[in-house]
């Protein structure tokens, strides 16, 4: 089980990092989502891998599952869900306003067409 979980987290993280480094916004968002999946699994594993144990210290049970990482994961899921929603909206607004999916923020020097300038100031 350790091998499975560890390699699972590794694959998710590697995929996430690769996608987050791409130039378009959409793969970046997917990459960030992969990274948050990886970290959620990782937090779970940090409470040690236990099967079929109660999350409290009970007399009849030989051990217990650490409940704290589960609470942490819950918080992490809520936060990362909200953040992902935000960045999706942001990317969508960016796409609608500029008509391009590029993730880079190039400074508009004079005379370069198609590059957004700071004209809002």
């Amino acid at each position: 089980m350790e091998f499975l979980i560890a390699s699972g987290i590794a694959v998710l993280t590697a995929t996430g990092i690769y996608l987050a480094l791409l130039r378009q916004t959409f793969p970046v968002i997917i990459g960030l989502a992969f990274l948050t999946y990886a970290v959620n699994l990782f937090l779970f594993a940090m409470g040690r891998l236990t099967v079929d144990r109660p999350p409290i210290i009970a007399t009849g049970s030989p051990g217990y599952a650490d409940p704290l990482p589960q609470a942490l994961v819950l918080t992490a899921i809520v936060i990362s869900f909200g953040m992902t929603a935000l960045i999706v909206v942001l990317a969508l607004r960016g796409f609608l306003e500029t008509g391009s999916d590029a993730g880079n923020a190039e400074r508009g020097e004079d005379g370069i067409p198609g590059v957004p300038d700071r004209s809002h100031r």
Partner: protein
Amino acid sequence: MNHWIIVPIILPAFAAAFLVTALSHDLARQRLVSTVSTLLLLATAVWLFILASDGTTRVYLLGNWPAPFGVVMVLDRLSALMLLVTAVLALAVVVYACGGWDAKGRHFHTLFQFQLMGIGGAFLTGDAFNLFVFFEVMLIASYGLMLHGGGAYRLRAGFQYVAVNLVGSTLFLFAVGLIYATTGTLNMADIAVKARAVAEGDVALLRTGVLLLLLVFALKSALVPLHWWLPTAYGAAPAPVAALFAIMTKVGAYCIIRMHGMVFGAEAGAVANAAQPWLLPAALLTLVVGALGVLATRRLLDLVAFSVVWSMGSLLIAISLFDAGGMAAALYYAVHSTVAAAGLFLVADMIVRHRRHWEDRLTTAPPVPHATLLSGLFFLAAIVMAGLPPFSGFIGKLLVLDAVREASSAVWAWGLILATSLAVIIGYSRAGSVLFWKAEVRAEEALTADGTGLPLTSILAAAGMIGAAGLLTVGAGPATDVFAATARQIMDIDGYVGAVLGPDARLALGR
């Protein structure tokens, strides 16, 4: 238990909730509520600062759960000082924003109060995971604030800022997970105790966690090579927001002091001062990159942003000593560079808004209206930031130089701090002369002072920040005494542990 400790978190939270529910369409009342709330926050911060200045570490147990089982808030000299700086800065920012920036979008004041809540929480919390949560509160609000006013360029820059910080948050979780896995606790004082006796097989894991955490805070404090997001983000953000962000880099520096200077500091057993060998070279590089940026940039806002990066270099050099002298110098420099950066962003905005399509480009343009006043403010703020005598930048730099005198890295630190200071002075002199002296009048393009001109409140806010730097200069004697006492308290990790976990924990340490 002193209930005042929780007020810097609760007050902005309630103000923000009230603003968004009751007053979301009434800008005048929003301004009133937001300003009053910020004033109350300042009063609370002053009171907490007085309270903490007796040297006692006060603990607030949320839900009255005993530490380390519940989440604790800890008020010591360090957190009280940072809260006070935040409140002073917040007042200047809210006054400046009321000059017109807050009208460019709907929820400026709500987001602003939420941001204050996140910053206050990050300074007060004594729990590693709670720190993550307050980081997120702070960041979510900062995303909204950065995008305030909209525009395609700001959206693009905002996307980068959000993406970078999401990666940072993920790293934070990995780090906290590793620390929890090896120490079995999240309470900072308890981590400090458990880290001393961590099992041999877990040392490598814990060290990884500690260094990942350093990476997160380095990202926040714009330490090279994790600084690249800052100029884009600060340049694109509305001016009062950029000024408020001046404290965000210091949140990163504060967390390095708290986690790597105290919790994983000199007495943390196998991971003692694990951050030190990485922090110093990175801080030296930060000086160089920041100064090169100042010289290379052709935009005023980027110039200010790169000088913020540069100032983080000196600050983190002082922190990387991990001794009382270094911490005292770092605190002085942190307060100074916060007000200096905020003042500069505000002054730069007042200049930029009159330059029409020249914006903040450092090219020849018709003379700026109100040139005498604006150039005077810019001159003063630039002197403060670049560290020329007589202002606080100079004293701060002297303190940092004095603190590193004995260290083995003294030659590098002295050489680079002095050389890069010269570069920053050149950068600012060039910017000032292009903006104000090289102006040429062409009749058809003359810039006129339009109706939106210069509200008195804007000038007051910017002048207030420069005045705060002046106050820090005049009161440098008493201020350094306070910072020295704060630094001694930072170095006394046993006192911190005893205050949070009770005297029994002290006995368990065998002292």
